[in-house]
């Protein structure tokens, strides 16, 4: 039902920005492949077994700019993340492997 877990963040004025916990600068991210793709489309894990290439793209993104500056982020959101795993998959994996579709 609810995706809200954990305690509300409390902290100094500077840090108290989120209804959800802010993300640490050094965080490890895993992809859970949901929602399911329609049956007529190959899923990301079929195009990218183990989503290895997608993870690499995400890690590169995390190393570059993972988290938005606090002043730019409204409260109670997940907007501290600066990337979309689906977009990264389409840009970095699907775009390079579309030729493997037979």
């Amino acid at each position, binding site marked *: *039902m*609810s*995706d*809200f*877990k*954990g305690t*509300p*963040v*409390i*902290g*100094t*004025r500077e*840090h*108290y920005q989120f*209804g*959800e*916990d802010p*993300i*640490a600068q050094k965080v*490890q*991210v*895993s*992809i*859970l*492949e*949901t*929602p*399911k*793709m*329609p049956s007529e*489309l*190959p899923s*990301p894990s079929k195009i990218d077994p183990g989503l290895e290439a997608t993870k690499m793209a995400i890690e590169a993104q995390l190393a570059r700019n993972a988290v*938005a*500056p606090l*002043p*730019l*982020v*409204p*409260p*109670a*959101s*997940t*907007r501290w*993340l*600066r990337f*979309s*795993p*689906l*977009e990264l*998959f*389409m*840009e970095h994996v*699907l*775009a390079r492997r*579309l*030729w*493997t*579709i*037979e």
Partner: protein
Amino acid sequence: MEHENHCEHCGFDLSRLEMTVLFARKGAEPRKLHCPICRSDRVKIRALERVFPRADSGRWVRWREGGVAGPANVIAVGRLKLRVESEIESLAKEQICFRAVPVFMSGGERQIPVLPVMPEYLDTLDPAQVRLAREKPHLFGRVIQERGKSRYQCVLPLRGLKQTEWPTYECDLLPANPFSPNAGDVDAVAFRGVTLRVWPNLKRPTHAWRYYVVGIQAATEEGMALFAQGRMLRTRMLVPPSDADGRPTSETKLEVVSLDQEVGREGESGPTGFVGATRKGRPAWVSVEFMQATQGGGAEAVGGGLFPLPPPSDSLPSDTWSFGVDFGTSNTVIAVKRRDGSLQCVAPERGRDRSSTTLNLLDGGPPTIHRGIDLWPGGEWSGPSHDLLPSELGCVRKWTDVASESAINALSFGKDFGVPLRGASSAVSSEHTVSEFKWLRAVEKDKSALARREIVQALQSRFLEGAMLMTAASLLSEEEAAPKTVNVNYSFPLAFDEGDLETLRLAADEAGTRLKQLTGADFVFPATPLVDEAQAAAGHASSDKMFRVYLDLGGGSLELLVDDNLARNNHQGHAGLHPHVFSSSIFFGGSVYLRSLVGAGEGDRRGACVMPGVGSYTRLASAVRQSASAKALLESPHVIAEARKSTAERRARVFIGYIVEYVARSLAGVCLEHGRTAQGALDLSRNRLFSLSGTGSQRRWILGINKGPQQKRVVEFCLVLLGNGWGFGDIVRDGMKTVEQMMAHRVYERLLELLRETDIAQDIGDGEFHLLDPRLAFDISYVLPTEGSHRKAAVALGLLGAHHSTEDAARFFKNRAPERHGVLGLDLWLNDQGRRIPWYRPFGPPAQDDPSQFEVFVPVVEAPPAPAPAPAMPFMAPAAPAMPFMAPAAPMMPGMPAAMPAMPTMPAPMPAAMPSPMGAFPGFAMPMEMVAFALVQQWPMLAAQAAQMGVSAVEFAQRQLWQQVVAQAAQMGQAPERLLATQQWQKLMQTMVMPGMTPEQLAWVQSQQMTFVTAQATQRGQTAEAFLAAQRWEQLTAMLTPPPDPTSGGFPPMPGMPPMPGTPPFGGPR
């Protein structure tokens, strides 16, 4: 005679002066003579016009016929003798003219050179007559029949001679076929199939435009007579020197610029022509010459002649143009704003009535020889509307051979490089073309040698320069007024990173500088691009749907913009919200599909579906441009191998299918957008599906909007497809009429599936409807391109749209999102706290709202129930890590009247499901500071209402604020005093607690703080809760003061919010 050699000041006749004077030159010019009587330099000596020094050699010459006679180094002026430093050369007309003159068949008519003079001797002609020959060429040169032979005849206006003294020059015609005799039939000896052309063809050329390209070429096999055995073709343009304003300073002393770049050379074959370019001004003449090798290893002219260009006008450019440039990965569209405000995409050469951008001095007819790469700037652009300029650059050399910034900048447009409008023949290596240079990362794929930022910048700069030149040439071939200033608006894809954006900005800057030199006009590019491409498109058209979804699928990227139409028009509670809900961009354009057809990579045909002849991306892209549709492309046996058609179609399904998925998930994200309050409650304040509906007491927040006579509840999205990448959607239309219809259908189906699979969808509601309610309709409509337009035109037109120059620009574009923002799309698991972030959550900082524009909506509230007595304070628990105030209500707040001020009579009670005040959504607790801020923003209205009620404005505002406190507390099941105390406690703790504290540390801090608060409250004879609530109330009411005069210092920033960009601190200068 005496009037020819006298002083014009005192009338003294110098020919009567018996003396010999040493008459030296000063440079190439003779020194001025001064009158020995009055020292005036206004001395006119007729003989000095007949004996003159040559401009190039400086040697003195006199005409053998009709000139003045005398000793070899003396000019006799009556009794006066002027002795020059060297022997005066005697010149004959045969020496300055070609021995033979060619005749050309041009457009079915005979065309001969206007003057038969060799370029080096043009200065020996009378300047006024040379000018006349350019303006009225028909007065000079003709073909005559003489004793059964055709000959060329022309009157030579030799310098210094009187008109009656001008000799007639006659010579043979130069036969196209050197082995055929001149039997008197002019047409038999004429050259055919030869094109001599100049670009641009300005309708009213001015001195300001300085860049010209001239080419001579065999259009047909007959035209190859230009390169007949034993002869060499040499073509040169003669450009007058000019002053700072570009005005020519001489008609006869011209600079010679060779057409030295071969064209049409392919493999072992020879060239089919030559091309040259000048940036020094409009050529006056083009000299076509035929040379023959001499025994000494040199070459001598055997024939030739001069073809004139009409002179430019003396007017100065004064107009101002506005361009909107959609610099696409595969194609570029440029729109222009006319003087009457109308917008139009530039389509050069469209229609027969339109003037061509190429001026044909000789027209060899439709070309049948297609060799090599054609870089000529004129001609039709691509696409059904002829307004697509391929974003490609061709070069006469391999691009890898000019892989440096300086080498690229040294190339001349139209001569060494250009936009290959007609593509390259199959024999030309793809190394001569470069495409997708909008993206460094695409160049890395295609031509790694060019994959450096400064080289990409140079390529972009040269392309923008060429595109602007071609556009300006197109307009000037029809418009008379040349521009003094050209304002160029351009956009960028949000997928650009900072480096990409900086590269484009610098490229535009460089192009502007170069264009100023070439055209004389100031091409003003903004310091940074105004808007991203999707936003630019959004400015082009209005809408009556809740959301417009702009999907720009270009060659390189897919731009997505979900535009909130209610916010754009300040409707239904969305005032002040930025219209851009989501705005994102991915490097996933039509080239992804095309590259998949080419195979694993350039030169690696694994997985390829295309025939080997189109085995490179550039060739395939060229084939796509020339194809009527993507479906036709797939059916073409020359492009797609028969056995691979089904695979090619399958890839198109995956390509489009993932785009549908991306769009559907983004729209689902709009529907499911929410946050959480610090208490964990659902916060829907950012969900754009809610709108304020009804009037008066019936006004309330609803999910979606009521539409139609039945007032059906609906959520509307309207798809606007932009960009030519959607052409690939034709492959998978599956019977739908248009790609737009197909997309709307698929997105609708998939959106509903996604919502049904999401648990939270049922939580998002207004108390009457929720997202999965079958009575709530989802309307996914679409907009078709306007008649005669196409999907790519909207961005360029949008850049010139009216809103970019109005207040809208400041409202919506100044506060645009700093980077992409959309939905995650896939679930994420973060290991920091073991959190799962669902796929529909947004990422990226949003566009900035304008809280001052928020609609103040005060719902009706019933008087709060009497507060319950306070239980024992929970604060004293020494190590309570949980937030305090979890117990029920607190006592009446001290400092407040025992009974709250009498509230105005409310017309109706607040519905149970209604949210808290000030535009909040169900479950959303609007910060009290924002409520107070909104009240202050409406102070004049508030003061008027207070006056009606007979109370002060401050008191009335306090009552309003208290209403909000009561309503919010009621929603949370608390007493208002407890709510205030809780908020105050939280504020205190914010200042005390540091991140990274352990629970034990946190408990200790809370305990210490509570001890302190309790002690203070005890001193005042209050409970801790009453003390905190009073503190909070005082802080809030302190905000309820009349706002300062906006003209003196503006409104203070909203408490708890960062100051708005561009807004000075309170009281500071604006």
